[in-house]
């Protein structure tokens, strides 16, 4: 039975992607779960596994061509099996193009993309929840089909304005124009010179036209002046997605917050003791965050309800505990997650954490690293911020916010004034799933863990 290979959903911030490399050729045998191509989108490249076993019968989208996610990019058949007509028809036009008016969906994108228009396929509206691939045959006049094929456009994404929705030549022309980002000549030349894909640049000109200042600001955000009073900053793709998701989370998932003052002296002493030994033995320096991440992961094992998400079928307790760490970048916040945080030791956490943060700052994270998170830790310990709240990172149901480490005076047993280091930690949860008492227990338990580090981390 033939299997369609689609460009996977590349995460919420991504609507299009391009295959940077096919790891298999047409005719190669593939196993289910084996990587067959590498997809690139925004700043992330991901290897994509084969959805089935068999022979890679046909590659429909070649390297370097940007297409919407969920586009059929290849077909896998069983050995000796013909590519079923219906799948091929749905996925790609037969070649040569039949002269029938009744044609079926997708014109394959041609491999040679014009250098100045790097997105030959007409993308679906950029911020819809996903492309709407029409099922069933798409009707187009033969000339429109030919023209779409020449332009590397996908008929399934073109609205037909002819009788009964038939796609006309004009529709194809319009789609071709619409798919190209509108930029001034000088902006396009600057982008070409710098090897920048204009589709990632937000235009500040009339009707979103990309002007030279947009390109230079994108290339070097530090060079452009900070926002001036009264200025209107066009929303970049990343910012649009962040704003949509933040609204969804803030208004869709009722948040409740809990705060606890955590005595850090024991943990700081424990860390001080451990750091030189660990550094000596493993060559890595444990940060306070590593202990936090680990403590949170252990706490999630005690309270699996906070390691969950709300789905139509119910509250899904995630099978893994992957604690994410919020990393600030100029383009926006990104949250890579440490994999299987509950199972691995502090050293492994520190190694993963250091690597993830470094790659987050240089924009080289892979998609699974961002998507696998089941709980988020957001720390402003470096700031002079006493406490703060955070919005849940959907579909997660819990987020921990860590305020500055500060000195606090207290009276000891002898009535002497002493000082200790404390941090105010905030827990935000999705109140649809998690009751106040559960959240309070979670935070209290976490506080206890952090205040008794020797015990908490000893069983590992």
């Amino acid at each position, binding site marked *: 039975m033939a299997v369609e290979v689609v460009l996977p959903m590349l995460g919420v911030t991504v609507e299009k992607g391009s295959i940077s490399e096919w790891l298999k050729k047409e005719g190669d045998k593939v196993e289910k779960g084996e990587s067959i191509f590498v997809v690139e989108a925004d700043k992330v490249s991901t290897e994509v596994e084969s959805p089935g076993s068999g022979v890679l019968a046909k590659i429909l989208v070649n390297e370097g061509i940007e297409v919407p996610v969920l586009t059929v990019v290849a077909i896998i058949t069983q050995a000796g099996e013909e590519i079923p007509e219906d799948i091929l028809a749905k996925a790609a036009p037969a070649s040569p193009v039949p002269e029938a008016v009744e044609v079926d969906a997708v014109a394959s994108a041609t491999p040679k993309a014009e250098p100045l228009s790097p997105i030959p396929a007409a993308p679906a509206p950029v911020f819809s929840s996903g492309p709407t691939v029409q099922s069933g045959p798409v009707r187009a006049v033969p000339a429109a089909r030919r023209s779409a094929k020449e332009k590397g456009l996908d008929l399934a994404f073109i609205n037909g304005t002819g009788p009964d929705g038939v796609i006309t030549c004009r529709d194809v022309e319009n789609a071709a124009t619409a798919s190209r980002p509108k930029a*001034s*000549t*000088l902006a396009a*030349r600057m982008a070409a010179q710098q090897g920048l894909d204009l589709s990632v640049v937000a235009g500040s000109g009339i009707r979103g036209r990309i*002007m*030279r200042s947009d390109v230079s600001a994108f290339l070097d955000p530090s060079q452009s002046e900070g926002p001036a009073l*009264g200025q*209107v900053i066009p929303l970049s793709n990343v910012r649009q997605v962040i704003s949509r998701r933040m609204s969804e989370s803030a208004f869709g998932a009722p948040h409740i917050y809990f705060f606890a003052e955590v005595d850090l002296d024991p943990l700081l002493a424990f860390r001080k003791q451990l750091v030189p030994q660990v550094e000596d033995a493993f060559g890595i320096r444990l940060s306070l965050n590593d202990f936090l991440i680990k403590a949170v992961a252990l706490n999630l094992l005690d309270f699996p309800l906070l390691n969950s998400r709300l789905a139509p079928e119910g509250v899904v307790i995630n099978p893994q505990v992957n604690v994410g760490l919020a990393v600030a970048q100029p383009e926006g916040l990104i949250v890579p997650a440490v994999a299987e945080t509950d199972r691995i030791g502090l050293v492994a956490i520190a190694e993963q954490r250091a690597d993830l943060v470094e790659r987050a700052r240089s924009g080289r994270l892979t998609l699974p690293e961002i998507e696998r998170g089941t709980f988020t830790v957001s720390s402003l310990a470096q700031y002079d911020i006493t406490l703060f709240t955070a919005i849940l990172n959907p579909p997660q149901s819990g987020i921990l916010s860590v305020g500055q480490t500060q000195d606090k005076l207290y009276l000891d047993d002898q009535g002497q004034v002493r000082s200790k280091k404390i941090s105010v930690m905030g827990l935000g949860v999705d109140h649809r799933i998690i009751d106040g008492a559960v959240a309070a227990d979670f935070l209290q338990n976490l506080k206890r863990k952090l205040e008794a580090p020797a015990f908490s981390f000893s069983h590992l």
Partner: protein
Amino acid sequence: MKTYDLAVIGAGPGGYHAAIIAAQHGLSVLLAERDALGGTCLNRGCIPTKSFLADTGLLEKATHSPVLTGTDKLKLDLKAMVARKNKVVTTMVTGLSKIMDSHGITVVSGQARLEGPGRIRIGPRLYKAENIILALGSRPAVPGFIPFDGKLIQTTDQALDPASVPSRLGIIGGGVIGLEFAAVFMALGTKVTILEMLPDILYSEDQEVRRTIRLLMARSGVEIRTATKVLEVNRAGETVELIHQNQAGKSMSLTVDRVLVATGRVPVLDGIDPQRLGLEMNGPYVKVDSFLRTNLAGVYAIGDLVGGMMLAHKASAEAEAAVENILGGAKTVDPDLIPRCIWCRPEVAAVGLTEDQARESGRRVRAGRFNLPNSGKAQAMGEIDGFVKIIADRDNGEILGVHMVGEHVTDMIGEVLMAKTMEAAVEDLAGVIMPHPTLSENIKEAALDWSGLAIHALKQS
């Protein structure tokens, strides 16, 4: 008391644009003007002189026509020329007044006085406004040593209702205004002499433009003396003697029947006391930031009052920016996108850098040019004096400067402005399908020539 969203002082092309744009955006607007709507531009500048130039140009063209006969008997009725000018001005001012009414703009006649942020006084009445735009404009500079009498020794304001045509006219100042009046009187048969203190006329324009204009003006009989300092202006009966010193320091005398002083313009500050208000100044001009804001809260200033190019469309562009900023925007006016037009004979139009400035900027630049004798339309019109020159960056094709001399070039520079505003490259201009036969084709040819591909030009070796 009603508080207006915006009060504008001065109803010239800066002030009335600001008032209309603000009203279009729903603001309540008060517009104060002590004279006539339209300011210098409409009453004493752009429009009246264009009316004169249209009439005198017609005479000049007819007189020099190789095909008309009996042209030696042609005469221009000076009274009718002035009357037509006045009618044009009245029509425009009346129209402007109706436009103001249609937008519900409160126009108050009288000398306005800025009392402080948010407050202006017109006559005895105090008005309040959230925002104020100062658009008071400028007036001709009147050097102290010149004994103006308004008849024989005039400012340009006083030259707009001539009762007679002088046979000899001395113009002090070879800038834009001086050359424009030279063109008017030269066509009326006056022997015009221009005395310019700087080493050249139109000193801020491209060298090639200056050379061409000097040559063509001289050919039309206008005498131009540059690097010449006027020391004394003495009225002697019905003539005036101009004592001046040439470059070599030699004193000379010139006797004329009328003197026109066109030595630039100074900002009008009537009703504004910078010292009392604590209003920061930039020399004689009101100081503003790039968003047209003065140092006083909610007080903006635009146009000639803030210096820079003293042009009507610069004031209007600043009006647009100031209003947008009042509405919460952050708009600035790019001086590289302000065209410069000079209505001498033939006309000059330019935008951006001169060729020298472009080369000195350190960028790799190249100039494309097209000479009017190669243009079919220019030949057909019998107006072949001039050229189009486009200077662009060799690396990315950015149009850095465009300079044109010739009839109707002031109407053509807009095409280039459009291209430049849209960040088109010089090759984009070359790719436009221009109608034939027109003068616009010359822009395309110059753009083609930039790549060595002009059509109506000899092959370059």
